[in-house]
């Protein structure tokens, strides 16, 4: 009896302890915005009610959006005897685990920074455009990774682009803007304060280079107002003593305090005198949060109707988001995004997601090459989405014109999947070995799951098997070992997959691929 009571006490204490931990985690989570309507999060129940394949699609939609990937053998329990797919425990808890990880710092970040140094080499000058991708690739899902990812996304938009392509900007500006964003977000700096700091920076003036240009663009970019032409000259009077020196003098931002304006100007219905006054008005304007939210929602939901997007924006804004973390999290974990949204994948979303899933290892020069405008490889420039270079930020959609797409496809097929050209890296035997437990059909399905998050259709299975038979019977092939055979079969399946449009899109999980 006493032992029973002790046991009960021990169990109770243990349970209470768990509850406290959960409460701590919950209280951290509860400081995030939690939309409840159109932007409401995909609930645990609704996630678990999806089929195993659909859960995996959702997991990789989320992971892929973060440039990460969830390997099939980690998500499914392939060791079970079940003929149907069985989701592992980590797969079942993927959404809430990921959400929790995004607010927890790495306690051994230095080790991952070492990994960046050891696994990647960069051109000294162009380093700032490649290194962020290395950080995102090497850091596990964590607050640190999320901050790098958010900064990379933001610096590729009109909101914060360093505009490296223009004469007055350079890679130093890329570094400053990117690092500035990461640092600010690490301190939980508000969206408004980040915007204010950016507007007053030299990097911003190197992009928008005169009082009239700068004030006009700040009103358009951060407030979404394109018809305030009457305000612009007055705002430019307030900023008349700020200007950019010429190239010979290093494109420096000059603030001539001897020429500071002292005549009040009415701009955006407020009286201002100096340039800082103007930036304060913009940063504190009621339109900032709706505008930022709208812009980011438009990027993540490019094919969704404007009515629906407006509802999503309204729901997020109603929660009074303060930080970029709040807005991004609300978008990424929303049911609308994870289940219904369809959009072209950016190159990073597609490539890095699959790379992780098929244990693709990069050469040290991979990211340097990917971001090199002069490389002969299918670079981000050739796909019309250079990193942090475009003055007005990247297109909202991955460009799918024939030329840009040809490079995108070439990168996916030749550098990632079918191993035709390999100066970026390759998947290897460690990935193939994961398929040792499978018979031929199961192995084909494993490959499909690993890349497309679905199993092969019967037609696809039959076709792959017939092609295997055909190539296996070629001279020489009958004598190769099992691993080599698997390697060649993998290259065949992946070559085929590289030609499927669904590889380049996130289809709606609810609708399926071929509907």
């Amino acid at each position: 009896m006493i032992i029973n009571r002790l046991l009960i006490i021990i169990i109770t204490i243990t349970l209470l302890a768990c509850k406290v931990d959960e409460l701590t985690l919950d209280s951290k989570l509860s400081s995030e915005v939690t939309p409840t309507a159109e932007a409401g999060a995909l609930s645990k129940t609704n996630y678990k009610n999806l089929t195993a394949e659909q859960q995996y699609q959702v997991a990789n939609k989320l992971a892929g959006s973060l440039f990460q990937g969830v390997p099939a053998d980690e998500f499914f329990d392939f060791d079970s005897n079940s003929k149907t797919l069985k989701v592992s425990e980590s797969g079942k808890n993927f959404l809430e685990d990921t959400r929790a990880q995004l607010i927890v710092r790495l306690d051994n970040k230095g080790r991952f920074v070492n990994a960046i140094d050891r696994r990647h080499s960069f051109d000294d000058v162009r380093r700032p455009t490649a290194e962020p991708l290395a950080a995102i690739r090497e850091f596990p899902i964590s607050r640190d990774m999320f901050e790098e990812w958010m900064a990379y996304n933001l610096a590729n938009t009109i909101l914060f682009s360093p505009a490296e392509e223009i004469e007055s900007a350079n890679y130093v500006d890329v570094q400053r803007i990117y690092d500035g964003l990461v640092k600010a977000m690490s301190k939980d700096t508000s969206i408004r304060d980040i915007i204010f700091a950016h507007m007053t920076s030299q990097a911003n003036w190197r992009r928008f280079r005169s009082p009239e240009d700068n004030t006009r663009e700040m009103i358009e970019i951060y407030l979404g107002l394109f018809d305030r032409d009457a305000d612009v000259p007055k705002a430019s009077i307030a900023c008349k003593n700020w200007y950019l020196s010429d190239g010979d003098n290093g494109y420096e931002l000059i603030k001539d305090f001897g020429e500071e304006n002292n005549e009040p100007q009415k701009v955006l219905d407020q009286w201002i005198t100096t340039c800082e006054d103007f930036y304060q008005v913009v940063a504190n304007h009621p339109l900032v949060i709706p505008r930022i939210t709208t812009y980011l929602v438009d990027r993540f939901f490019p094919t969704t109707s404007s009515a629906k997007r407006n509802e999503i924006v309204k729901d997020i804004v109603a929660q009074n988001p303060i930080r970029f973390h709040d807005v991004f999290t609300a978008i990424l974990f929303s049911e609308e995004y994870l289940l219904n949204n369809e959009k072209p994948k950016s190159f990073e979303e597609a490539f890095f997601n699959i790379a992780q899933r098929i244990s693709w290892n990069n050469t040290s020069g991979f990211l340097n090459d990917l971001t090199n405008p002069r490389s002969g490889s299918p670079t981000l420039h050739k796909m019309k989405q250079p990193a942090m270079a475009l003055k007005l930020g990247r297109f909202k959609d991955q460009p799918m014109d024939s030329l840009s797409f040809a490079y995108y496809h070439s990168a996916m097929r030749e550098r990632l999947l079918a191993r035709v050209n390999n100066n970026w890296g390759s998947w290897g035997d460690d990935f193939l070995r994961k398929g040792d437990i499978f018979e031929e059909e199961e192995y084909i399905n494993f490959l499909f799951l690993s890349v497309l998050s679905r199993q092969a259709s019967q037609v696809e299975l039959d076709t792959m098997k017939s092609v295997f038979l055909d190539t296996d019977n070629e001279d020489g092939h009958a004598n190769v070992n099992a691993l080599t055979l698997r390697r060649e079969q993998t290259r065949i399946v992946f070559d085929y997959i590289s030609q499927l449009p669904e590889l380049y899109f996130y289809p709606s999980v609810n609708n399926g691929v071929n509907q």
Partner: protein
Amino acid sequence: MRRRQFIKSLGMFGGSILIPSMMGGQGLISSASAAGVSSRSLINARAMIQGEIDYVQPAVMPQIINVFLYGGPSELAGNLSNIDDINANSQNPYDTRLFEGGDRHTLNHFWGGGGNGAGGEIMERMIAKGRMSVYRTIHRVDDDSKAHRPSIFSNLTGMLGEDDMRPGIATNIASVLSANNVILPEALFPFVTFEGESVVFNRGSGDVPLQLRPISLNQNLRNPFQRPDNSALNSESDQAREVIDALAKTMQANGKARFTKAVDAFTKRNEIAGFIDNLSSKLENNNLPLDPDFVPPADDPGADVPELQYPGNGFGPRLRAAINLAIENPDSLFISLGNQGLGGWDDHNSAQDDYPPRMRNLMQSLEVAAKHLEARGKSNVVINVFGDFGRNVNLNNSLGWDHGNCQNLFTVGASASAGESIPGRELGKIVGKTYRTGKTSENRQYLKPTDDSYQCEPFAIAASIYKYFGVQNPEILTGGYSAIDETGSPNEWIDPNA
């Protein structure tokens, strides 16, 4: 019926069949029928279109090369007629050599300066030879926006509006030509872009048949469309590759509605790959024509006539590719060039340093292009050069120009020696007179047409293009804006030989 109502009325048949209902000859009506639209409605749609747009197939089918200068190019290279007054009122001074009488101010008020100028001497030559006209008063009055995005949208769609889904100029041309069965099914790549996606090819809310969708090419005619072999698929009979490809094609067709752009790209890949290979090998074996303007130096009267040479950077390679394409593939009716990666024209700072070399490069490239067309007898090719808007003429404190209004249109082509040109087209002119407006030492000072000057809205450029292709009432497509009056507008050109 105003154009907006016209397009809206077509929309009642469903966005997905808006353009197909105009594509009478393309077999798409059946797919529209499958969408459940009554045949009466479809007949009405076709009747409306054919009733509204007065089309006559032109005797000379044009080929348009559209060079859009993103960022809004200053008009000063093409119009220094007010420079003395501009300088007197500017916050910061201009180079004195630009003033009237200075050695960078040409007879017809272009920004000269030879190897240090903005191409003014080239402009003088091109006008004198009948290879270019300059319209100095492309002047936005209606809904005058100085923001990039609305200006780009309206200038490349040829109409006002806030709807991002409105079709681009090239899409409208595709619609009209297809509805009138002018584009043959076997025509190869009638719409091409060297700048990737562009608003000029906006599809609008409808669909455009695959044949009429633009393909994008690299200016060096690189061929990423080729697919290197996968050794895992090597077999003597090539059957494995064919089997895989055939299945992939089937799956692509199944996903067509949802993944249109990727499907298009896959579908056209082989065709484009072959086309580029063919074109590249033709060009390898073709030298550029000899320079028709070459005058041997006095000390070497027997000097060989050199071949034309495009500038090796900037606009040179891109224009070379576009001209070669137009010559070798007469099916290419609309070719789009932008300046992405070639330096924007948004010269808010250091303008006197940055703008002239860019302009000079553009003019050098255009002059070679015109001579190239002339040598090949391509009198039907029209090269139009314009941008978002013109700029302020005050030099701001960053020594640049902010957004203005009045801009130039440079329209270029082969001189009359190349043969019968497009009816109504006239080269060798300078049109428009301007004056400076705005307060002394304030930033917002810009050029406006004088009261007695010819002027037109930017949408007149689109209307002119539609007219070249045979649309008699282009106002239908531009919301009321007519084509440029090329033959009736007064010519301000001063003949140096007069």
